[in-house]
Structure formats: structure tokens, C-alpha cells
């Protein structure tokens, strides 16, 4: 390994580490999660083993025989010889004898009842709540509602209950509270009508916004191109700000513009137009503003890129065109536009991907409303996995949504490799030693 190799790898390694940690690993994890049923209920980091009351009715469907289910059900707490012996060992024979006298042979449905029974001890009462709870626990004969951290502990417990070995595997599987591997997410995506709508929304969003971005960016670049420098700069500044203003603030401005008591409503009121929430009145309204909000951000990028490539076109060409009698529109149509094919192509391809995966502005503006009409795919992924009113975060399903975008992202960026003229990019360094 020569010095250049060492230096190259050394220079690359900090960035490489960051990329591996926060790109590569997450991509792999996303793929894995997409094949799981991970959610708030299952937790992320693995689960424990528990049979709850409501699980009992699910067990037959999971392949556990009725006899086994019945063994699991039944009374929870029992005062009988073996449990009393345990109690005696911890809390003394005298208490055990008194309890046997009071409740010997009794069984209780829940711990609360068991605790009440323990309170009946008069001669040497257990005063501390914690101790009484610990004592009640000694009489537990059911495993319902108990969590076992490992499979081994759970199997031991059900074996102790006498569950036949034939049922143990199915029961253990059903008792696991963590996530498991499944392809259900994809079936679900396929079946849900909403999925298709989100995909359609995404397509609509990308196409409309992109058209606005490119068209408007081009218009801004061309029109400011012909203006005196100062005037052009002013307009460029106006259109550049949306790009660098924090999204939270930028969307707030739009909300102020559009809400019932906002600017548009106030302006139109004297004309007899009832104030409405212009951003959320109908799906069309919402789409219009989604496109405008995102479009104004995107158009600035187009404007700047196009402006700089316009500046690169030699002025003499325009003089020549003027001499040839071309008016401005003809200059634009026949001289300028044909030379901007490459930047237009770049903006289009680059923004397709970023629009496809961006949802920040939509989240802040309409949050997908009204009626899921502006819920795009990426936002659906975010909502499903990380944010919904119900608080039930479905990481697995969300990852499946995200996976679709990841795959599209990889495919599209592979395509861009061709656009970006990869051969030139990887031209060998000219110093060889």
C-alpha cells in the first residue's frame, strides 16, 4: 500500500464512518424492518413472553389445544399446601397457620383479592404494602399477565403448569410480545386502497410541483436575465428566500395568508366573498397551495441554476440574434432554451427524487388533509411509523412504505449515474505516484 492509498483512505474514513453509521446501516435496517410486524406494541428491541387474559381467546387460533388453554385459565391465586409452604418460608409459620385457618383451600381471581385475604391476618399483620404484594405473589399459581424475560423462563413456567409438550411450541410463539418476521406488510400495502391513493398523490405531487419548479424557475431566470442587475437581484432575492427560510416559519406565512381570517379572506371580504380557509377548503385548494408552497422553494433552485447557465452563454450570440432581427421571445426560443437542455434535465431528474421523498412542507401545511387528499407516500410512511394520533406507531409497516422509496431512490440514482457522465467523473487522477 503506497502513500497515496494510505492518504486517500485516511482522508475518506471520517466521512465513510458517518455514511456507514447513518446511511448504510439504516438502509439495511429498513430492509429488515420492512419484513417485520414491529410496532409500538411489540417494541423495537425484542420482546418478552407473556400470556394475558385477552390472549387466551386467541390461543386456539394459534394452534394451542383447548385443554392447554384451560390449564392456563382458571384461578390465579390459591391458598394450598405448596403455596403455603412458600409463604411460611418467607413470612413465618405462624402467619401461614393463621392464613390456612382463614382461607385454606380458597382461590382468588386476582391479586387484589389475594391481598385482601392477606389483610385478614390479625395476629401478626403484614403492614408494608410492598411486602404484602410480595407475599400475595407467593400464592400465584397462574402465569397470566406475568412477563418472562427469556424463552427458557417461560417454558419452565408452562412446564411447571403441566402444559403438554405438544402445545409448548405454539404457546411460546403466541406468548412472544416482540416482533416477528412476516411479509404481511407488503400484502397489506397491496390490499389497502389507501396505498394506491398515496402513490397517486405522490405522482400528482411530483409532476405538478416539478412542472411548476422547472417552468417557473425558467421563467424567473429568463426574465431576470433581461433586467438591469439591481432589479434582477431584487427579484432573485425575493424568490431565493423561501429556500433558506426555516420551513416552520415559511409555512406559517402561508397559513397566515390563507386561513379564514387571513390575508386572502380579508382582501376578498369587501367583494362579498365569504372568508374560507383557502388552504384546506377542498382537495383542489389544498393541492394548489401544496404545489405553490413547495414550488416556490423549488423554483428558486431552478432560477439560480438556470441563471448561472444563462450567464455562461456568450453575449455575442444574443447580439447576433438581435442583428438577425430576432425579438426577445425568438431569442429565448431559438438561442437560449436549446442551450439549457442540460441544466433543465439536471433539475428535473434531481428534483424528482427529492420531491418524491420530501414531506416536511406538507406535514407542516396540511398534514395530509383534508381527508387524506394530500397524503403523499413519504408522509404516509412518516405517519405510519412515527406520528399518529392513536399513538400506535407501526415501524414495520412504515419501513415497508420507506422501502419502496429506498428502492425507487436506488434505481433513479443509478439512472443518474448515466446522466452525470460517470466516466468523466471517475477519470483517473493524473498524479500516479
Amino acid at each position, binding site marked *: 500500500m503506497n*502513500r497515496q492509498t494510505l492518504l486517500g483512505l485516511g482522508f475518506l474514513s471520517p466521512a465513510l464512518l458517518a455514511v456507514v453509521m447513518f446511511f448504510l446501516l439504516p438502509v439495511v435496517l429498513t430492509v429488515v424492518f420492512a419484513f417485520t410486524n414491529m410496532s409500538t406494541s411489540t417494541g423495537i428491541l425484542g420482546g418478552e413472553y407473556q400470556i394475558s387474559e385477552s390472549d387466551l381467546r386467541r390461543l386456539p387460533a394459534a394452534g394451542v389445544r383447548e385443554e392447554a388453554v384451560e390449564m392456563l385459565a382458571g384461578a390465579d391465586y390459591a391458598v394450598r399446601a405448596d403455596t403455603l409452604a412458600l409463604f411460611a418460608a418467607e413470612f413465618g409459620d405462624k402467619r401461614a397457620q393463621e392464613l390456612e385457618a382463614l382461607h385454606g383451600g380458597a382461590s382468588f381471581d386476582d391479586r387484589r383479592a389475594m391481598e385482601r385475604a392477606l389483610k385478614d391476618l390479625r395476629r401478626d399483620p403484614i403492614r408494608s404494602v410492598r411486602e404484602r404484594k410480595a407475599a400475595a405473589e407467593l400464592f400465584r399459581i397462574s402465569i397470566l399477565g406475568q412477563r418472562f424475560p427469556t424463552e427458557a423462563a417461560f417454558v419452565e413456567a408452562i412446564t411447571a403448569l403441566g402444559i403438554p409438550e405438544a402445545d409448548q411450541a405454539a404457546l411460546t410463539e403466541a406468548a412472544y410480545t416482540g416482533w416477528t418476521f412476516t411479509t404481511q406488510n407488503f400484502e397489506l400495502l397491496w390490499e389497502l386502497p389507501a396505498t394506491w391513493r398515496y402513490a397517486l398523490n405522490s405522482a400528482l405531487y411530483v409532476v405538478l410541483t416539478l412542472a411548476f419548479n422547472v417552468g417557473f424557475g425558467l421563467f424567473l431566470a429568463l426574465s431576470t436575465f433581461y433586467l438591469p442587475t439591481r432589479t434582477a437581484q431584487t427579484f432573485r432575492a425575493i424568490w431565493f428566500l423561501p429556500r433558506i427560510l426555516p420551513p416552520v416559519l415559511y409555512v406559517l406565512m402561508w397559513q397566515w395568508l390563507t386561513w379564514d381570517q387571513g390575508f386572502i379572506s380579508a382582501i376578498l371580504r369587501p367583494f362579498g366573498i365569504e372568508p374560507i380557509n383557502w388552504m384546506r377548503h377542498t382537495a383542489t385548494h389544498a393541492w394548489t397551495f401544496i404545489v405553490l408552497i413547495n414550488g416556490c422553494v423549488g423554483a428558486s433552485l431552478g432560477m439560480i441554476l438556470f441563471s448561472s447557465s444563462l450567464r455562461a452563454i456568450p453575449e455575442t450570440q444574443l447580439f447576433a440574434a438581435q442583428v438577425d432581427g430576432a425579438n426577445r421571445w425568438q431569442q429565448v426560443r431559438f438561442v437560449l432554451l436549446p442551450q439549457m437542455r442540460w441544466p433543465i434535465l439536471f433539475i428535473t431528474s434531481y428534483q424528482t427524487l427529492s420531491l418524491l421523498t420530501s414531506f416536511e412542507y406538507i406535514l407542516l401545511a396540511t398534514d395530509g388533509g383534508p381527508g387524506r387528499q394530500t397524503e403523499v407516500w413519504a408522509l404516509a410512511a412518516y405517519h405510519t411509523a412515527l406520528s399518529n394520533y392513536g399513538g400506535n406507531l407501526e415501524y414495520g409497516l412504515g419501513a415497508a412504505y420507506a422501502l419502496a422509496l429506498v428502492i425507487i431512490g436506488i434505481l433513479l440514482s443509478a439512472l443518474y449515474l448515466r446522466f452525470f457522465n460517470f466516466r468523466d467523473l471517475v477519470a*483517473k487522477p*493524473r*498524479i*500516479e*505516484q
Partner: protein
Amino acid sequence: MRIELQNFTKRFGDTTVIEDMSLSVASGEMIALLGPSGCGKSTTLFAISGIHRIDGGTLHFGDRDVTRLPPQDRPVGVVFQNYALYPHMSVAENIGFPLRVQKLKPAEIKSRVGEMAELVQIGNLLKRKPQQLSGGQQQRVALARALVRKPDVLLLDEPLANLDAKLRLEMRSEIRRLQRETGITAILVTHDQIEAMSMCDRIALMKDGRIEQISTPAEMYERPASRYVAGFLGNPPISFVNADANGRLAFGDNALPLPSGIAAQGPVVIGLRPEHFGPQHQGPCVSGQVSFIEPQGREDLIDVTLPDGQRLRAIVPAGHDVALGQTVNWQVDLSRIHLFDAEGARL
């Protein structure tokens, strides 16, 4: 310092650019690598400088094998076509950089930079930044920087390409002067035959990664080793005429006697420089029709189209009375014609 490049081979990926080339440059000699772009002359230069790895063969400076040395360790100074001055450094810092790398004391750097600046005559510019200099001044700074650490070899990569015509003339002699004064072994890469001929002791004419001929400028002009060499040197260029050698050289209605000592049979190519053809010479005649006259002041260039459609060019002193369309029967200086076989090798 003598440079000995032996069996040099260079590949970029799968394409072999230079194969099995040898070149030796005597100590204190200045040699030109001349050729059209893409002939491998810059590649050879970069291989000697160490920037390109040598894929096959060896390179010796004197007795020292430098084939595997990185460029940092080779006693070589390079002047690049665009001078590659460091834009953020002043002239003095630019020239002093190689010394700073060698960790010399600031005082010594200063004195050597001053010395070098005097040598290239830019002593008054030391505080300027490169962008404040004219092309010729930048050139001088680049030379000074290349020479300051007293390298054994000076490599010049198209050093005059970025200068205007007048400066080019001036720098031509300036570089030659510096090379002579320092006695350094120098290699000049150029595609300009005049530069090569006027500045160098010897010229290596390259084609497709090979050295076509290596000799002094006069020798190369007088006795080109191949049709290619003959065609490359000379302005206005040499004219070629296809002829059939059968005891004499026949082409169309014209024929020339075979020069003495040359035995040839079958198709050959005659090379005839314009200055050896015209009404003012002694020798056998060739007739044709004047098809073009280009006045040059002191003399005129006149194209003569032969009956078989081939064309010869002549330099005729001004004041002649030749008219366009006129049929002429002009002499050829037979001792100066060059004969090449069908493959282009000199006969």
C-alpha cells in the same frame, strides 16, 4: 546530468501509449520532444518527472536509477504550460516554496530566491501575486521556481504556448540563455517545429508513441529519416510527388533522373522543398501550370500543378513575371531532393 530512458513503456488502462522507447540526453544538452498532440511527448515528460509511473523500462539520471522514485525525490524542475503558479502566494513565496519544503532557513531561502529572481530578471516583482503579472513575467517566475532548488534536469512542457508572438520570440532566447548559463540538462516538449529547431541542441521527433528520428535540427531538416519527418519540418512545407522509379523517376509527362547512389525500383515518393524548385535553380526541369500565387513580400509562393494533377510548390524571389495559368518549365535542384519508399522510409 545525463538522462537515460531505456525501453520505456507506458499504459493507461488497457491502451499502451508508448512502447519500448529509448532516449538518451547528454549532460548539459537541451533536447526537444517534438510532435503533434497525442504523440506521447507529454507522457514521456511526465514519466521523466515522476508524475506518471513508468510501466516498463528504466530511467537513469547519470548513474542513478530513478525509475521508481516518486516525483518529490527526483532532482527535476518542471515548467508547465500554464506555469501553475500558486495563486495565493507572492512571487517570492512561489519561488521559495521548493526550498521551504526542504526546510531551509528563511534567510537562506531569501537569498537564493533573490539570486534566482535576478537570474530571470524579475527582482522587482517579488512582492506581487501571480495574477498581477504579465504572461512573460509569469513564465520567468515559473522558470525561477523550477530552477531554484538546483535540479539536475529541467523539463519544459510547451512553455511558450500561452504567450503572444513577440513574447514568444523573447522567451525563446531567454530560456536558451538560462539553460546555457546554468548548464542544466533540459527537455522541451513542443508541437512547434520553430521552437524546437531554434532552442534545442537536438530534436526527437515523435509519432504515435515512437521516436521517429533524433538528431540535430540541421541534420533533421537536411536528411529527414522518413517522409513523416520531412513533412513535419519546414515552412512552407515540403511537396510530395508520387513517382515511378524505373531507371528514372517518372511522374505524368515529367521525369527526373535518379540521383546518384540511389537504386530504386517501383513506386517512390519524391520530396521537394519549395526553396529547391523554381526558375532560379540549376538542374533538370519539370513543367506544369501555375495554379496559385501567394505573395510573401521578399518572395512569392507559387503552386505549380503538374499535368498528372500533382502539385509542386516553389519559392520565387519577388519581381518575377509569372502569371496565373501560365505554363512553366522550372528547374529542380536535384541534389536536394529526398526519396522515400512506399512505406515512407528514406531511400
